């Protein structure tokens, strides 16, 4: 049982390459590789970007988005059978509530607080969450939250930045809601006690984000999401809103009418009226009947699209997408996924985790194993990521880790070389701490990076109130689609969560006041969905939602016997 020998946190065999990076730093002081031409960009994208390399997507065979392309991992979930047999579930109501919120990131928590503010008593709100309250991608956000609040900026400029960044595919009215509410959200967070970075005059210190033409990133050191989340969570807990932790939603409930006759008479095809929850520990199900249901379950990074490592939370398995789709909600922009170029490639402990873009905008260069700067450091994310893949896999100029990851160096010491000693420690305390834990000093040595799966661009389509095409069903946050189009800009995700969390809470409150009485809840939509699966000749080999990923060792799984 030999221990791995490490020098300065890295395996001994990597030191030679690290020395090459350290030795060429002085000659690179005033050198930056040129940015690519449009033709070069097109070529590198089509050859190396995971969204463009053929084989990763397929058409959805059933349902309202039939024919749309989505990553195979997502299509797999949509073309899967439910976890429960709808005929075997007794729909006796365990919880009767006005608003059921599923998910407890920034979107879910904001929704609960605003619904309460709008007059829904706390007893008439129920928040169910798969893990602990607050477990979400929200708390992992580093960079900041966009809001056009400086005098030389305004919501219209923010709108244009996001619309162009989304390749002109964003749903415009929903995007307008995002930029219009942004300053209000910052004010709301401040009033709750969020500690945004401010300069000595009391104004926000606002920073650049990729693709913006104004500095409008509001940060809390490099723990922006954590600070926003824990403040909003503390407010949520102080209000004592009923909460079910470690309860997954495994299906929605509808009062769907069985026969088409009802439809032709003008009654709604279906209406969401709550959910089936499942206790993650006792495996018991509970029936929640609700006048309005808000899905705020987050993204799907843990599906490891195309086999990529991810920056995402353990619970990011796309559950809400599946549930809503089965109930008839429309999806959009399912064909694109955001990969971030600088995920950690080493050490093993943090593979795939995000190393903020700000490292490159303050001077860190991507360097190959021979110490050569091979790409312009601030290409758009997709181009930059593709160039890393080419360097590692076509040119074989990457560094291979003990677990077989190939990466390139991100020359972090160059940040201090350019900006002066002490700059890294001051600007990136969280990141310095993370590497320090594994014996790596990013002030002295470069760090190893490779592209990582980051964000679900598309999702469930909404209107500017957070409403879906299904009555009684609202969505907020990463699970929604439309606001970011086919590509999200930095700083717009925490914003999206809070803006549409708040709006869905407000409009769900307004909606439930108009709902007089609910019919008996059913799982008819699931029976219908199963029939569609069978008609499409989809085999019963997959079930969804998957709830959590499975990382157990293969050797153990091979010897596992299910007897207890």
């Amino acid at each position, binding site marked *: 049982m030999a221990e791995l020998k490490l020098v300065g946190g890295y395996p001994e065999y990597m030191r030679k390459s690290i020395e090459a990076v350290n030795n060429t730093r002085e000659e690179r002081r005033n050198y930056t590789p040129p940015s690519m031409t449009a033709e070069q960009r097109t070529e590198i994208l089509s050859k190396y970007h995971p969204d463009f390399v053929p084989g990763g997507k397929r058409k959805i065979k059933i349902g309202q988005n039939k024919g749309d392309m989505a990553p195979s991992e997502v299509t797999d979930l949509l073309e899967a059978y439910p976890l429960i047999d709808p005929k075997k579930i007794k729909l006796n109501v365990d919880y009767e509530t006005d608003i059921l919120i599923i998910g407890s990131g920034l979107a879910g928590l904001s929704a609960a607080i605003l619904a309460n503010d709008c007059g829904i008593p706390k007893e008439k709100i129920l928040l169910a969450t798969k893990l602990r309250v607050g477990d979400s991608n929200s708390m992992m956000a580093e960079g900041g939250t966009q809001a056009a609040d400086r005098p030389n900026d305004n919501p*219209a400029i923010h709108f244009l*930045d996001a619309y162009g960044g989304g390749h002109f595919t964003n749903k415009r009215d929903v995007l307008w809601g995002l930029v219009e509410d942004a300053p209000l959200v910052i004010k709301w967070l401040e009033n709750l006690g969020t500690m945004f970075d401010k300069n000595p005059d009391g104004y926000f210190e606002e920073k650049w984000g990729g693709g913006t033409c104004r500095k409008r990133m509001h940060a809390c050191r490099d723990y922006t999401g954590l600070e926003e989340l824990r403040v909003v969570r503390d407010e949520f*807990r102080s209000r004592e809103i009923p909460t079910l932790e470690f309860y997954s939603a495994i299906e929605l409930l509808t009062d769907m009418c069985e026969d088409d006759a009802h439809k032709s008479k003008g009654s709604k095809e279906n209406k969401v009226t709550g959910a089936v929850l499942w206790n993650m520990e006792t495996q018991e199900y509970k029936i929640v009947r609700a006048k309005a249901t808000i899905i705020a379950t987050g993204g799907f990074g843990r599906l490891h699209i195309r086999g990529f490592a991810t920056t995402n939370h353990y619970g990011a398995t796309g559950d809400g997408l599946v549930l809503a789709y089965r109930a008839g909600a429309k999806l959009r922009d399912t064909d694109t996924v955001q990969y971030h170029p600088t995920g950690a490639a080493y050490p093993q402990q943090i593979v795939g985790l995000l190393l903020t873009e700000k490292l490159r905008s303050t001077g860190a260069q991507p360097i190959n194993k021979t110490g050569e700067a091979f790409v312009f450091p601030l290409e758009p994310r997709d181009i930059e990521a593709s160039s890393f893949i080419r360097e590692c896999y076509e040119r074989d100029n990457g560094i291979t880790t003990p677990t077989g990851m190939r990466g390139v160096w991100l020359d972090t010491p160059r940040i201090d070389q350019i900006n002066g000693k002490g700059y890294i420690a001051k600007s990136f305390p969280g990141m310095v701490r993370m590497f320090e834990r594994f014996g790596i000093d990013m002030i002295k040595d470069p760090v190893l990076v490779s592209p990582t799966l980051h964000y679900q661009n598309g999702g469930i389509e909404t209107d500017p109130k957070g409403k879906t095409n299904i009555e009684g069903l609202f969505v907020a946050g990463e699970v929604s689609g439309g606001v970011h189009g086919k590509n999200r800009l930095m700083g717009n995700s925490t914003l999206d969560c809070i803006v549409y969390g708040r709006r869905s809470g407000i409009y769900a409150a307004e909606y439930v006041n108009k709902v007089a009485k609910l019919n008996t809840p059913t799982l008819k939509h699931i029976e219908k969905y199963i029939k569609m699966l069978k008609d499409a000749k989809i085999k019963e080999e997959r079930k969804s939602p998957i709830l959590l990923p499975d990382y157990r060792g293969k050797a153990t799984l091979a010897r596992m016997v299910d007897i207890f």
Partner: protein
Amino acid sequence: MEKKLDVIGEIKKASKSVTTGIDEKDIEYWVEIYIMGKGYKVPAALTVMQAMEYAGYRFTRACGCRAGFCGACSTIYRMKGEYKLLTCMACQTRVEDGMFLVQIPFAPADKPSYDLDKESADPSIFLKYFPEIARCVSCNTCTKACPQDLEVMDYIQSALRGDFKAVAEESFDCIQCGLCAMRCPAEIVHYNVAQLGRRVYGKFLNPPEKSVEARVKEIEEGKFNKDRDNFLKVSEKEMRKLYAERVREAD
């Protein structure tokens, strides 16, 4: 003859240690750890969390962001042959030969409810909601337990003095894992004390920012409604033109 390179396939293969679980045949270096007393041989390059998964555990509790932000995977351990109890976050700590591990995924601690709109930056607020902080014996066990290396005892002392700024600054990197509270002989829930301190500081001692106030007012007055109406009706071509005409502010 040029062989077609399956790039995505290569990445997929290389990433499988973090995407689908690790394969025994890929492992060169091993260590032995003890999960709740039971010994397992696990790959040396894994975190405590990944090693437990390798051994066959599938987490519901004690696993969250897997990135050191959420505080779900609080772990207490002892090295073989030692008596000292150590703490770590399972997702941010590499396994070492001879670790005896147990996880503390939940802290049975109370959080008082308060409405900050009805409070002020009155230094007595800490004792009002957390009278137990007066029982601090300055043993510093909390500080030693902190996986973020915060000066926990110092900020509790700052809270006793009613120094909001010090509490806020010293506790800012807190991930609320609860290890401090679980080790405290005085049953103080440090991370909740800190949360109150930061919120009071952020709300009352950091005066409201002026430009955001002004912008919210402008929006409420409808100053940008004509931009909205325009954006909602013009063609994509026109939108592309507007996008191209943006001028980037100076660095």
